């Protein structure tokens, strides 16, 4: 017999807790309540709930912080935030922190029951996907739904939010058979009826419950992908490509250099570096953006800058008078950055010109080009080394890259027609 699913409700108002318990009474699940975020976290660690309802505004630990911590402990937990101050920006923030959905107060018993049903259904899906992953032999491309390697698997959009004026992030429900990805890999995303585009995976590899892609609107396909809304369906093939050399980087200083949307393919590597901080030497994260408004993931960058165990620097190409940080191109951060050039590993992503200049600065510092890794995403069409669109000599960028050592990539940078 399957154990009953557990629902935890965290709210500082006892009258709300009583109402929730009354609504859930008679359902085939166990229930528990907590009157503060701190108590909720303690209880969650004890009873391992499947679904947690969290009030946003509570004395002490704020609700969104509770959601983040709960999911940090167990990424498969489904969290739904409830609030009497529902705004679009709060909903987006909740989504970014990992909430599955958002329930504005006041709600009817039917609305609360329906939300609980959907949350528990979601939890069952996530656990099932997790079981599939654990029986799989390791990360690898999806089977293409049995219809060949070019067939995309339909995936539902769980959430979508704007990052900057031209960039959005899609949170996708991982497709059936998804076995996870390694930092640096990409998926082919198919906007049905429009076309496919190679989009790097930008989320935390440990977050089993959702697959994040940050998409910049630069053409027909990405325009269409950026228009997707919660509940829409997108085709996914992948993951493809070589990962960042995180194993090789163990025990070495790691220099991450990201320009513009280049932070998206590097973010999974940053998650890995931070989650296993002890494995690496110094960690430097050097970020460049066009303007303050173009800086990707600003809240996360703020957190990175506040950490004592890494050095995160940000520079803008252009700034108005009020900006108190650095102004200048990202390569200007490299000459004085403190790292052991003899052994360090660099991971660089941005526009090609930026990557060339950054790699040249790193080599100037004494780094071997073979330890400077860049991500090339030129002209990729099929993603699996079949069509030849991205072929340069004996190399297929999609199959042999996209992550390559600069010793190999330098020659590819000089090929203008690919």
């Amino acid at each position, binding site marked *: 017999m399957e154990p009953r699913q557990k629902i935890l409700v965290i709210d500082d108002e006892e009258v709300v807790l009583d109402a929730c318990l009354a609504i859930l009474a008679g359902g085939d699940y166990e229930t528990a309540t907590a009157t503060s975020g701190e108590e909720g976290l303690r209880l969650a660690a004890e009873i391992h709930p499947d679904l947690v309802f969290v009030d946003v505004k509570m004395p002490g630990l704020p609700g969104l912080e509770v959601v983040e911590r709960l999911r940090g402990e167990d990424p498969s937990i489904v969290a739904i935030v409830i609030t009497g101050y529902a705004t679009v920006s709060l909903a987006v923030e909740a989504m970014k922190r990992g909430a599955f959905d958002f329930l504005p107060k006041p709600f009817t018993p039917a609305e609360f029951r329906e939300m609980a049903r959907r949350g528990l259904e979601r939890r069952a899906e996530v656990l099932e996907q997790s079981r599939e992953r654990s029986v799989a032999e390791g990360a690898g491309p999806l089977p293409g739904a049995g219809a060949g390697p070019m067939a995309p698997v339909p995936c539902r959009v769980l959430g979508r939010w704007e990052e900057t004026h031209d960039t959005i992030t899609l949170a996708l429900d991982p497709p059936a058979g998804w076995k996870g990805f390694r930092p640096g890999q990409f998926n082919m995303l198919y906007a049905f009826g429009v076309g496919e585009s190679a989009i790097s995976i930008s989320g935390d590899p440990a977050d089993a419950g959702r697959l994040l892609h940050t998409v910049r609107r630069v053409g027909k396909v990405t325009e269409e992908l950026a228009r997707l809304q919660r509940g829409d369906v997108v085709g996914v093939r992948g993951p493809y490509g070589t990962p960042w050399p995180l194993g090789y980087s163990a025990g070495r200083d790691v220099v991450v250099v990201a320009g513009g949307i280049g932070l998206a393919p590097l973010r999974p590597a940053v998650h890995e570096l931070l989650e296993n901080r002890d494995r690496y030497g110094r960690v430097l994260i050097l970020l460049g953006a066009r303007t303050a408004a*173009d800086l990707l993931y600003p809240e996360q960058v703020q957190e990175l800058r506040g950490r004592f165990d890494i050095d995160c620097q940000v520079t803008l190409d252009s700034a*108005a008078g009020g900006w108190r940080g650095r102004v*200048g191109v990202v390569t200007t951060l490299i000459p*004085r950055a403190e790292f052991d050039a003899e052994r360090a590993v660099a991971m660089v992503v*941005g526009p090609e010109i*930026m990557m060339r*200049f950054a790699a040249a600065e790193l080599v100037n510092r004494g780094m071997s080009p073979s330890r400077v890794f860049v991500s090339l995403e030129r002209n990729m069409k099929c993603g699996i080394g079949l069509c030849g669109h991205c072929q340069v000599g004996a190399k297929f960028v999609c199959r042999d890259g996209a992550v390559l050592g600069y010793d190999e990539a330098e020659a590819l940078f000089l090929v203008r027609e690919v």
Partner: protein
Amino acid sequence: MPGSDEQTPIPLELLAAHPFVVGMEEAQLRRIAECALKVTHFATDQVIFHSGGVARHLYLLRHGDVALEVVAPGAGTRVVSTLHGGDALGWSWMFPPYRWAFDARALVETEAIVVDGEQLRRCAEADHELGYQVVRRVAREMADRLQAARFQLLDVYGERP
């Protein structure tokens, strides 16, 4: 000249530690030290010089951050670039008409060794070996900043990565 000043002579070791003069011979360092006026501290938001003002000094930044700014009527202030501890601020004292091209403002508390540009220019003219060393370093700064400015002009983040 704004800034709170320490009027004591500049110790040679203090000057020798600045990246701008690393690699110079001791005699050359001594000549530059003779041109160095003082160590100055600028408060946060203090203006170091204004565009159009007479450029008299070279500032060897020891600590802090400085913004080079330009004010365009109707468009407000734009930060062109920032300089930091270890950078050399200002080369307009080297070439006629000896006027600053931008405003310089301390973004945080900033400390700089102030060198008399006019005197350094005279020393460089009298001693061409010293002059070469100074011009070579200024040219290096210019080359780095020119490259960065060209890179900025490309507006690479506006294109597909």
